[in-house]
């Protein structure tokens, strides 16, 4: 059974249609990479799936058989949808650990004592090779680009979502940092966690095995294939897709 089933999804920002009739099916444990140029609608897609209030969505999206679009952002998160943000917000004065504990409690639907949560957090941070002092800083407060990414990955590791969506994971990272993040991602991911990665560049596929690669343009998926599609894109550029066959 599929985890996520998108049918003819349209996403509007005010009156502008950004995602224009997109369909996509993701099964548990699958890794999907959505590639596309700036403005193709790929980030909007992820934000709309997470429930960003800026966007209005039409069409059908089923997550685990339930209507996703009818749910509020926090309900989607509790059901297991996770978005790693490209530009996560600062929440000044709130420590990453206290924020994450609240999120953990919400996601799991049961209380966790400070001590109990601390144990989980310490273990995840150790796995990610992170200093514990990192969790005592304000959420994204004064974080470098790389630290923000690592914070997002840590959140993913702690919350153990069923669908992890990563928005421009590779932006602002050098090759080594990207490899490290990709390696971390493979390490923390449960076998049945589905992943959607949105990216401008194919280079992440060197570090991460994708089950499906999609190309987005003008709010639609114009080509789908396996990992070889990304290689072709890398070699030939997005212009090449114009003449290729669209097969979502």
């Amino acid at each position, binding site marked *: 059974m599929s985890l996520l089933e998108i049918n003819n999804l349209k996403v509007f920002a005010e009156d502008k249609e950004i995602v224009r009739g997109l369909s996509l099916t993701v099964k548990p444990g699958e890794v999907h990479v959505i590639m596309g140029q700036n403005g193709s609608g790929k980030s909007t897609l992820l934000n709309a799936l997470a429930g960003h209030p800026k966007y209005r969505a039409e069409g059908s999206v089923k997550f685990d058989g339930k209507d996703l679009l009818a749910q509020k952002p926090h309900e989607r998160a509790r059901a297991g949808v996770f978005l790693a943000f490209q530009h996560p917000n600062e929440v000044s004065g709130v420590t990453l650990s206290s924020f994450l504990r*609240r*999120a953990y409690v919400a996601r799991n639907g049961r209380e966790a004592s400070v001590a109990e949560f601390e144990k989980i957090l310490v273990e995840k941070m150790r796995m990610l090779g992170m200093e514990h002092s990192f969790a005592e800083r304000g959420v994204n407060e004064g974080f470098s680009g790389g630290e923000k990414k690592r914070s997002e990955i840590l959140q993913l590791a702690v919350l153990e979502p069923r669908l992890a969506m990563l928005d421009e994971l590779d932006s602002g990272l050098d090759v080594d940092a990207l490899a490290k993040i990709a390696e971390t991602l493979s390490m923390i991911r449960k076998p049945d966690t589905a992943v959607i990665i949105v990216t401008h560049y194919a280079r992440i596929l060197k570090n991460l095995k994708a089950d499906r690669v999609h190309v987005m343009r003008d709010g639609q998926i114009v080509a789908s294939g396996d990992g070889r599609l990304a290689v072709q894109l890398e070699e030939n550029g997005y212009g090449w897709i114009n003449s290729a066959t669209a097969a979502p």
Partner: protein
Amino acid sequence: MDEAVLKEYGRDALLREEPEESQLNVGYRAEHAGLTIELVKEISEVKGEPEWMRKHRVKSFEIFEKKPLPAWGPDLSRLDFSAIVGFVRPRGQEAKPNSWEEVPSDIKNTFEKLGIPEAERKFLAGVGAQYDSEVLYKSLRKDISDLGVIYTDMDSAVREHPELVKKYFMDRCVPPTDNKFAALHGAFWSGGSFLYVPAGVKVPMPLQIYFMMNYPGFGQFEHTLIIAEEGSQVQYIEGCSAPHYTKDSMHAAVVEIFVQKRARARYTSIQNWSKNVYNLNTKRAIVQEDAVMEWVGGTLGSGVTMLYPCSILNGRGARAEHLNIALAGEGQVKDTGAKIYHNAPNTSSKIVSKSICKEGGTVRYRGILFVGAHCTGVKANVRCDSIIADSRSSAETIPIMDIRAKDAVIGHEASVGRISEEQLFYLTSRGIDPEEALAMVVRGFIEPIVKELPLEYAVEMNRLIEMEMEGSVG
């Protein structure tokens, strides 16, 4: 403090019918409403005061009559001095309870719900409770009084320590001529704290007092006088609450603090009056050489508040720190800030003001920073941040800076922000519900000040703020 009590005191939704007189724990009260010269004399008479204090009251009243209301600041036109009941002595006060058990039971219940004197046992050096005009209960740990510390109510201090009171009371710090409400206070003052810390004594734990205004349409004018002698250290905390009746009440306190050479004083105040209280206070400290004065405040309740704690840095190397949180909701105006006068070289100051407005509330930071021409090596930093929860509310910053010294290092930062949709989305996208997300943002915003509060107060402050923010998510 439990939720039920928070709901009982100071919440709009619980506007209460005025109870029967018999339920108000009145021992003695002014026969008529109205702040008149007759009442001034009556108060002095009832208290059996010495002649010098009676004269002080009469002189203050004359000044009060001549002074106009402030020409700036919030609208005070609805404030009716003739409707205010200026003196209400609680039942049981004459007996001067020596132990908590002797306090009349329903008054005791009120305070016990607020955690007094339970808190005393845990983390305080001394505790006091004022009900309407007078202090009902005051205690000081024996080991602290053995050090020569005096902590008593102001009325007792007039009788028992006249030489100290005469020397400091409403003279060089806040004279009745300072402003109309200080003059009013000088005429009608009753209750409050007198705290004297001898040279070199470091009081290890805070002293606390709780002020309760219970009588409808009442005016509370408690006087606080703190003297921290050379090299001493002390922390004083006050909490305020009142049930919400239909009649407007007023509160015009005066706080005078003398921080002598190398002494260190911290004054913390958490104000949660009901929302029909006019809260018009004058609080000031005179800070001597190498001494430190810290003001920590949270003003949550009351309708109109005018409060600008003032530090006068008269000694070389003196330092002041002012931390304030102000929250204004529907019908509330918080005109608050800080005044700092650098009158000596190498003095330094820091102001951090955090204000939150929502549901049509107005927050206004108003401050004065003065540096005298001969004061070299002065450092001062002002930071005012506001957040606005919705489009009906407003935040303003009115800083006045009068810097006459050439080498003063002055920093000023101000920010006004809306709680952004993006920020709330980020938190909710992790499973945190919208109410909690908003509370988190606000908690984070005030955290730099809350972390300066003793734990019990920090918890209470966060809880009060969360209650205030409930229902603010669109």
